[in-house]
């Protein structure tokens, strides 16, 4: 009897995951794969159209392409480049004699805990072309004001500023944790052998940090490709022109939301979601391959 209980218990304990996954994960995901080959507005009869949705997306849908290039560009300037800033900051924080380390760590982590929607509202105000803080500072510095969200070319840089603000600290703390897991003797012995600070950084710390870099950059890619909240709020919200002026802030997830929930095109929307998913997976796998090549 007891033995039996011990055999059944683990299955019982893991069953909630599988039940929930099949109902709320696998079923909608596969249903969406099916829908991507159909035309459906949610109420009409589901009409099978073969590859039409995918062909339309790839060959004729300018919005879709625009959303992809926007998302990639934002991924680059909003999520990836910041790792070059975060890593040196982490090195600065990684010192036993640094005063106020607790304060710095708390401050750097603060942006991560906030609601993107709330903070995007504030940044919207900071970016106001007439009264915002950013243009005020630009004027103080003798520079001309920027139109930010009224001008297509500055929409993405503005969104990227918010993304950098939100994630640099998170990445810094992540790298800091990575640095602290590197044994101090390693660095000490290199120093004794006469290695300079930069040599230590590039030839000892950086290679040892590769797994953490992989982890942090992968997270950036995965979340960056699904950018939604910041771009949507800053470009006028749900009711506005998707992605703001000239759709300059239209990310692929905003496009998916627009197609599916504003235009009610469930088939096309599902096709968008599958294409986006495949792009995320291949980007992550490619990045993994690159890191593995560097490691060998």
């Amino acid at each position, binding site marked *: 009897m007891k033995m039996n209980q011990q055999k059944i218990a683990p299955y019982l304990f*893991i069953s909630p995951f599988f039940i929930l996954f099949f109902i709320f*994960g696998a079923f909608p995901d596969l249903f969406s794969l099916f829908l991507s080959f159909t035309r459906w507005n949610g109420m009409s009869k589901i009409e099978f159209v073969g590859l039409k949705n995918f062909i339309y997306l790839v060959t004729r849908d300018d919005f879709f392409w625009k959303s992809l290039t926007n998302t990639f560009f934002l991924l680059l300037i909003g999520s990836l480049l910041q790792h070059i800033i975060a890593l040196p900051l982490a090195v600065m924080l990684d010192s036993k004699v640094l005063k106020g380390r607790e304060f710095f760590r708390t401050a750097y982590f*603060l942006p991560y805990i906030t609601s993107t929607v709330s903070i995007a*509202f504030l940044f919207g105000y900071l970016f106001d072309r007439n009264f915002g803080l950013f243009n005020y500072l630009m004027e103080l510095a003798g520079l001309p004001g920027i139109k930010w969200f009224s001008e297509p070319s500055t929409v993405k840089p503005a969104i990227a500023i918010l993304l950098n603000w939100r994630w640099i600290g998170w990445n810094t703390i992540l790298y800091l944790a990575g640095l602290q897991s590197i044994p101090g003797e390693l660095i000490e012995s290199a120093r004794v052998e006469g290695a300079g600070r930069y040599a230590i950084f590039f030839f000892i710390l950086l290679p040892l940090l590769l797994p953490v870099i992989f982890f942090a950059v992968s997270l950036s890619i995965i979340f960056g490709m699904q950018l939604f909240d910041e771009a949507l709020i800053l470009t006028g919200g749900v009711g506005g022109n998707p992605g703001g002026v000239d759709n300059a802030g239209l990310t692929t997830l905003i496009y998916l939301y627009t197609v599916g929930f504003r235009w009610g095109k469930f088939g096309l929307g599902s096709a968008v979601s599958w294409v986006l*998913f495949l792009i995320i997976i291949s980007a992550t796998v490619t990045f993994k391959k690159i890191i593995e090549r560097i490691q060998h």
Partner: protein
Amino acid sequence: MVKKRSAGHTLLWKVSGTLKYLVLFGVSLIFIYPFYYVFVLATRERGNMFKVPPPFWFGHGIVDNYNSLLKNLPFWRNMLNSTGIAVLATFTTVIFCTMAGFAFAKYKFKGENFLFNFILVTLAIPQLLGIIPFFKMMVWFNWLNTWFPLFIPTMANAFGIFLMRQYLAGSVPLDLLDAARIDGIGEFKILVKVVFPLAKPAIAVLGISTFIGSWNNFFGALVILRDKRAYTIPVALSSLLGIHNIDFGAIMMGTALSLVPLLVIFLFFSKQIISNLLAGSLKGVAR
């Protein structure tokens, strides 16, 4: 070990030391300032918000902004929704993930590896993939504008199970479990009486990150919640964007109030959050 440095070297070292503090402190200010600014703007009078130079100090509009916020939104109802969903999400996630994590950490059973790898693979599937059918399902379930879709599907999630398994594998001695079994304690009771108390540090990490994630969840909530009174805070605030001539002080008041719970949690637990959360996620990396 202090190495001898020439005078020139020492100076350079000192300058770069000061520079380091300047950089670190400057960046901290950039991170903290927006929080301060939200609270400043929440107190500014209506006609006193958009001007040059922009306001840097608190004003006297706090009551007006608050009233205006309540006129535009059932704000406390939205707060209740956000809180209720986040609390339910936190409790259920902790319970189900600890349960599953325990099973993978401390039992040998057929298909264990396959099932665990299966769970890990699902980590790669984003919510957006099935969002359209998920919405349709919620219509069929009659779950639109309810709390259920916003915590039930993620109660037992891959990240949480992984985190708990990693932690429990190293912190619950098998002897202890066997001793409990010899005393005739059932498996479920062992989970409640032995495992949960031992798992506290990992539970704290999972609980806090679940709470923050739920409180800030926007995309899923936007799809599911269509009625003003059902909105959570992020959806409620975003709905104000569509209104013409909306009082910006009201938006900032709502924003400020929505930040308070998170700031309170964070200031109390920041040390545990940062060190445990990172230890937890990096443990996964090291493998």
